[in-house]
């Protein structure tokens, strides 16, 4: 046992360690802070996430494998860790002013940080046990974050609904894991890959994969496991929604890539048809259910459900190109959806409600907010020259490349993109054509301005010069596929 501990090279956990250290400092400072003094927890969380992000990008942790592969560092893990930290940094930066008056911001920032640490461990999990534990670390801290707005009962209702649906799908997920364990004789992903091989697979493992798809479907809010999303997006505190809508969804796709494409490629005859059905249902329900919405958050919730459907097309393709398209789209989606939610954060706080009608004349009241929100909606709809266009094109192209049998999936996706353009344009019409209902400018704080400009830059750069990022995602996806 002693040797077991001594052999571990803890520097593998450097980036997680930086963030954890920041969380420790945050707890300590909040504990000794005199009453009435403002809490610096937001600044500490921002500093921790930016430091960990810079460390991870400038001096990447080399490839490693700990505890017989139960925890691994590889290109995929490094890519997703940077993505989660970027989401955390931008969401924290944008919500300084929102959190200023909240008594619960210390706990809230802590939960967001803990959830990010969980996501970073999750993408490095190489064993079903470590995968399950880190997935629950992510989920439970997000349940708490969703329900922390003690001043609003709706926040607790959203939290409970999130938790009940989440716990239900966790149960399906681990029940499926138990069958995979029985069928393959191990919980290690490498051993499972070897046991599945290329053959038809043990019937127990097949049953397990089907059950596990349900658990994964919940994380990415795919139909029919999407019912929690509109309620949580509407009722939860906006910074948590902004963060979870990009980071938690990316985490779901990260384990999908690792489990399905990386480990269970031999069972693709089982999960590809199921994912195809899931993708079509998700795109269709998301696009059509968004049309009648009058609440901007519910509209964005259904839009993000539809977006998950598009990303699933890349997983279905299952090739290095498909996976790299998923990675690229998730990065674009991070900038896009954060820009949308930061705008919602500021406008809702000012207007006191989330009605789409409150966005009337936003272009006159705050040109920057209106511009950021418009670019985000156009990028979500897939209009050139924004990142969303390149991302969708690349996703569709990767599916067409695999086989013409996936052509119908691409046709459905492209058609529903046009449907979704309808409700995105409705919001843009409110902002740019309708006259403002209330006079007066909407102030945007300096921190939120920086976050919005980062998001705009991200959307435009990935749209006009996508090659650099695309090369990076291909380098990340290459070694995963085709073992």
């Amino acid at each position, binding site marked *: 046992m002693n040797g077991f501990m001594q052999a571990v090279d803890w520097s593998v956990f450097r980036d997680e360690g930086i963030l954890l250290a920041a969380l420790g400092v945050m707890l300590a400072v909040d504990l000794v802070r005199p009453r009435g003094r403002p809490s610096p927890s937001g600044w500490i969380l921002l500093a921790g996430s930016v430091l960990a992000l810079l460390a991870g990008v400038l001096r990447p942790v080399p490839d490693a494998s700990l505890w017989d592969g139960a925890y691994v560092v590889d290109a995929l893990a490094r890519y997703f860790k940077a993505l989660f930290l970027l989401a955390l940094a931008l969401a924290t930066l944008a919500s300084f002013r929102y959190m200023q008056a909240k008594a619960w911001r210390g706990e809230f920032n802590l939960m967001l940080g803990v959830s990010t640490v969980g996501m970073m461990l999750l993408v490095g999990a190489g064993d079903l046990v470590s995968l399950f*534990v880190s997935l629950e670390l992510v989920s439970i801290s997000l349940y708490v974050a969703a*329900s922390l707005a003690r001043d609003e009962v709706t926040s607790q209702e959203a939290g409970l609904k999130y938790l*009940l649906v989440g716990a239900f799908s966790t*149960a399906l997920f681990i*029940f499926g*894991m138990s069958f995979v*364990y029985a069928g393959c004789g191990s919980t290690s992903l490498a051993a499972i890959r070897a046991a599945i091989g290329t053959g038809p697979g043990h019937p127990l493992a097949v049953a397990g994969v089907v059950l596990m798809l349900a658990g994964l479907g919940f994380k990415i809010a795919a139909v029919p496991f999407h019912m929690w999303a509109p309620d949580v997006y509407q009722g939860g505190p906006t910074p948590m929604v902004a963060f979870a809508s990009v980071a938690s969804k990316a985490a779901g796709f990260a384990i999908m890539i690792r489990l399905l494409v990386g480990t269970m490629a031999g069972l693709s005859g089982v999960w590809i048809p199921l994912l195809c059905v899931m993708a079509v249902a998700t795109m269709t329900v998301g696009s059509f259910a968004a049309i009648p919405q009058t609440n901007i958050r519910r509209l964005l919730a259904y839009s993000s459900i539809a977006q998950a459907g598009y990303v699933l097309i890349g997983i279905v393709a299952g090739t290095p190109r498909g996976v790299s398209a998923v990675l690229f789209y998730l990065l674009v989606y991070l900038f896009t959806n954060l820009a949308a939610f930061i705008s919602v954060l500021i406008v809702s706080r000012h207007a006191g409600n989330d009605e789409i009608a409150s966005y009337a004349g936003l272009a006159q009241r705050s040109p920057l907010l209106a511009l950021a929100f418009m670019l985000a909606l156009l990028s979500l709809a897939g209009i050139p020259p924004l990142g969303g266009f390149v991302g969708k094109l690349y996703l569709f192209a990767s599916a067409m490349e695999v086989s013409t049998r996936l052509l119908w999936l691409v046709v459905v996706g492209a058609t529903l993109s046009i449907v979704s353009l309808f409700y995105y344009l409705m919001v843009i019409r409110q902002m740019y054509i309708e006259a403002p209902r209330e006079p007066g400018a909407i102030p945007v704080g300096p921190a939120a301005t920086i976050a919005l400009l980062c998001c705009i830059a991200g959307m435009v750069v990935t749209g006009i010069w996508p090659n650099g990022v695309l090369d990076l995602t291909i380098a990340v996806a290459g070694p995963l596929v085709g073992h």
Partner: protein
Amino acid sequence: MMDVRSFAVIATVVFGIGVYGALARRHAIAVIIAIELMLNAAVLNFVSFSRLAAPGSAVSGQVFAVFIITVAAAEAIVALALVLALHRALKTARLDRFNMLKW
């Protein structure tokens, strides 16, 4: 000699009861209990499979069972705290009364 199949059948029946309860019950506590049943079915599976189906890596199945029990406790604590907070505000713990957000 116990058969691995009989354990798997019992676990699946328990899991099925849990699924039914989670979908059909309207009281928050009853739904939480039903979800606990589902998690316990998975624990039963891991323990019996570790002995009978995967003797090569028996430890990891048993470790998994312990982790599921621990995580289920953490989840139940958060769930019960939320039910308590909602009960205090709304004087009910029935899920169909928690309808401030459009379903």
